[in-house]
C-alpha cells in the first residue's frame, strides 16, 4: 500500500516535527476484532495547531494514545504504520526511549481532569512529581516550580492551593492543574484530548484561550482533539476530520469552514445551529456511526451519505488531493466542495 501524502502544508526542511504514516490500530476483544484506526496519516510542525475532529468512536483519542504509547495492550494492538517524532519512529523505539519522550517531548492532557488526577495526592505533589522523577529536582525546588507552573496556568492563589486535593478544585481549575502538569517538562508537542468537553461553556472558552496563549508563549505545537466545531475555529491552523478510523478530510481551517469537500464534514457544519437564520430546522446526519467490527464496504460513510452512488459501496476512496493542498477521501470531493461553496 502506498503512503498517502499529507499535503495540506509543505514539508519543512528536516521533515515534520511529528508525522503519522498509515497507522493501523485494532482492538482484539472476545467479541471480535474492532478496527479502530485504519490508515491514519497526519503531521504536525513546530508551533502550529492541528485540530483532529470527529465523533465518539472515530478513533481520534486512540490515535493520540498511540502517539503517547499509552494504549492498553491488550486489547489494543498497533498493526502497522509509523509514528515519526523528529524523524525517529516511536513504534520501533524501546519502551525506555518512549518513556523519555513522554512528558518531556510530547505531553498530553485529558478530557476528565477529575479522574485523570490521582485522588489521594495533593495537586502540588502531582505537578512536582514529574519534576522530581524526570528532572531529578529536589523536593523544595519541585514545589517552587509547581507553584510557578500553577501561576502560569492562572490558578488564583497557587502557593496556597498546592496542598489541596483534586476534588477540592472546580472543573476548570482542575483542568488548569492538568495543563500545569503537562507543561512541567517544557514539551514541544501538547496533545489536548477533548480538554473542554467536561466543562461549562463559559469555562470552556477560558481554557481554550489559555491553551492558545500558552501554545504561543511557549512555542509549542498542539494537537487539539475535539468533537466540537465551535472550539476549533478560533484556535486551530489545520483540521483533520476523522470518521471510522480514517481521516476523511484534511484542510486549513479557513477553507474547510468555507467549503467542506467531504459530505461528512459538510453534514457536521450544517448541523451547527445558526444565529442568523430564524425558524430553520436543524439538519442532522442521519444514521449512526459504524460498528468498528463491521465497517461498511467501500467508503465507510456511504450508508449515511446523501451523495452515495454504486462506486461508494464498491471502492474505498483514496485521498483526493484538491487544488489548494487539501485532501478529501470522497469519490465526489470536487462536487461536494463546489456544492458547499455555492
Amino acid at each position: 500500500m502506498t503512503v498517502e501524502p499529507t499535503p495540506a502544508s509543505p514539508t519543512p526542511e528536516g521533515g515534520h516535527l511529528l508525522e503519522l504514516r498509515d497507522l493501523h490500530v485494532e482492538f482484539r476483544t472476545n467479541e471480535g476484532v474492532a478496527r479502530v484506526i485504519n490508515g491514519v496519516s497526519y503531521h504536525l510542525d513546530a508551533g502550529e495547531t492541528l485540530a483532529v475532529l470527529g465523533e465518539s468512536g472515530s478513533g481520534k483519542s486512540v490515535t493520540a494514545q498511540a502517539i503517547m504509547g499509552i494504549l492498553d495492550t491488550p486489547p489494543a494492538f498497533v498493526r502497522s504504520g509509523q509514528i515519526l517524532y523528529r524523524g525517529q519512529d516511536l513504534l520501533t523505539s524501546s519502551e525506555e526511549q518512549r518513556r523519555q519522550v513522554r512528558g518531556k517531548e510530547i505531553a498530553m492532557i485529558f478530557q476528565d481532569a477529575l479522574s485523570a488526577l490521582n485522588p489521594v495526592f495533593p495537586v502540588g505533589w502531582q505537578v512536582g512529581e514529574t519534576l522530581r522523577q524526570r528532572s531529578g529536582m529536589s523536593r523544595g525546588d519541585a514545589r517552587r516550580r509547581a507553584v510557578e507552573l500553577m501561576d502560569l496556568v492562572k490558578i488564583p492563589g497557587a502557593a496556597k492551593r498546592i496542598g489541596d486535593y483534586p476534588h477540592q478544585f472546580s472543573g476548570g481549575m482542575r483542568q488548569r492543574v492538568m495543563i500545569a502538569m503537562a507543561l512541567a517538562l517544557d514539551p514541544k508537542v501538547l496533545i489536548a484530548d477533548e480538554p473542554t468537553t467536561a466543562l461549562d461553556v463559559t469555562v470552556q472558552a477560558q481554557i481554550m484561550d489559555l491553551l492558545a496563549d500558552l501554545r504561543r508563549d511557549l512555542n509549542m505545537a498542539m494537537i487539539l482533539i475535539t468533537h466540537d466545531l465551535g472550539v476549533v475555529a478560533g484556535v486551530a491552523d489545520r483540521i483533520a476530520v476523522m470518521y471510522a478510523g480514517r481521516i476523511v478530510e484534511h484542510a486549513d481551517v479557513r477553507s474547510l469552514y468555507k467549503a467542506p469537500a467531504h459530505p461528512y464534514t459538510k453534514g457536521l457544519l450544517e448541523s451547527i445551529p445558526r444565529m442568523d437564520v430564524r425558524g430553520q430546522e436543524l439538519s442532522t446526519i442521519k444514521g449512526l456511526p459504524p460498528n468498528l467490527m463491521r465497517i461498511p464496504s467501500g467508503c465507510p460513510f456511504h450508508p449515511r451519505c446523501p451523495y452515495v452512488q454504486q462506486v461508494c459501496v464498491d471502492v474505498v476512496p483514496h485521498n483526493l488531493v484538491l487544488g489548494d493542498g487539501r485532501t478529501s477521501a470522497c469519490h465526489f470531493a470536487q462536487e461536494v466542495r463546489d456544492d458547499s461553496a455555492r
Partner: protein
Amino acid sequence: MFRYILRRLLQMVLAFFGTTLIVYALMFAGQGDPIQALAGERPVTEAQRAYLTEKYHLDATGVGGFFYRYFDYVRSLLQGDLGQSLTGRQIGDILQAAWPVTLKLALIALAVAIIFGVTAGVVAGIRRASIFDNSTLVLTLLVLGIPTIVLAPLAQYLLGVKWQLFPPTAGSQPTFYALLLPGIVLGSLSLATALRLTRTSVAENLRADYVRTARSKGLVKRRIVTVHVLRNSLIPVVTFLGVELGNLMSGAIITEGVFNIPGVGFNLFRGIRTEDGPLVVGIVSVLVVVYLVSNLVVDVLYAVLDPRIRYE
C-alpha cells in the same frame, strides 16, 4: 472531624446500653431458678436461699425487678466491676488473663493475612488472568469454602499430630510457637478475603484514568504501581483489616476451643455451655466496647487514608 468523633462516642454509649440490655435479658430470661443454677447439683438451704435472694435482689419480680437488677449490674460495670462468675472468680481477672492470649493470636492471624494475603493479592491484581492469579483464586475459594470447624481439627491432626511440626494444643501458658498454627488457621479466612479484596482493588485501579496520566508523565512502571496504584488500592484493604482486627480481638470460639487456648473465645464458650450468666454478660459487654472502638478507629483511619472522605 472532632465533632464527628464526639458524636460517634455518644452513639457508642447508646449502643453499649442497648446491647448489654439485650444480652442481659437473653441470658437471664431462659434461666429457671438462678440460685439452683448457681449451686449446681447440691441442695440449697433456706438460709442460703434468703441470703442469695437478698444479694442478687431476686425478691423484686417482673419487668421492674429485671430493670432493677440490670441497672444494678450496669452501675457496678461502670465502676469497673464486672462481678463474679458462677464459679466465684472475678470476671475482671478472667478477662485479664484471657485477653493477652487472644490478642497475640489475633496479631498472628492478622500478620498472616497481611504478609501473604495482601502481597499475593497485589501480584494477582497486576498479573490478572495469569496462572498465579487463577491458582490463588481457586485456593482462596477453597479456604473460604471450608468452615473453621473442619479446617482447625484438620490442621491440628495433620500438622500437629501426624507430622508433629507444631504443638497440637496450646495449654494454659501458650508460647508464641504454640499459637502459630492456630494463628495461621484463624488468619487463613482473613487471608483469603484480604487477597481477593486486594486483587480486585489493584486490578480496578490499574485501569483507572490517573494511571494513564501517570504513564503520560513518563514515570517508570514500578513507580506507577508502587506509589499511584497501591496508595489507592490499599484504602479498602486497610479498612477491611481494621474491622477484621476488631473481630479477631473478640476471640475465636472454634479455633481457641479446638487448640485449647485459654483466650476470650474459649472462656465465652465455657460460660455459654455452663449457663454462667454473669460471665457471658461480662465478656460480651467488654466485647461490645472493643468492637465499637475498633470500628470508630477504622472510620477515622478511612478518612485519613482517603482525602475525599469528610466527616461532618
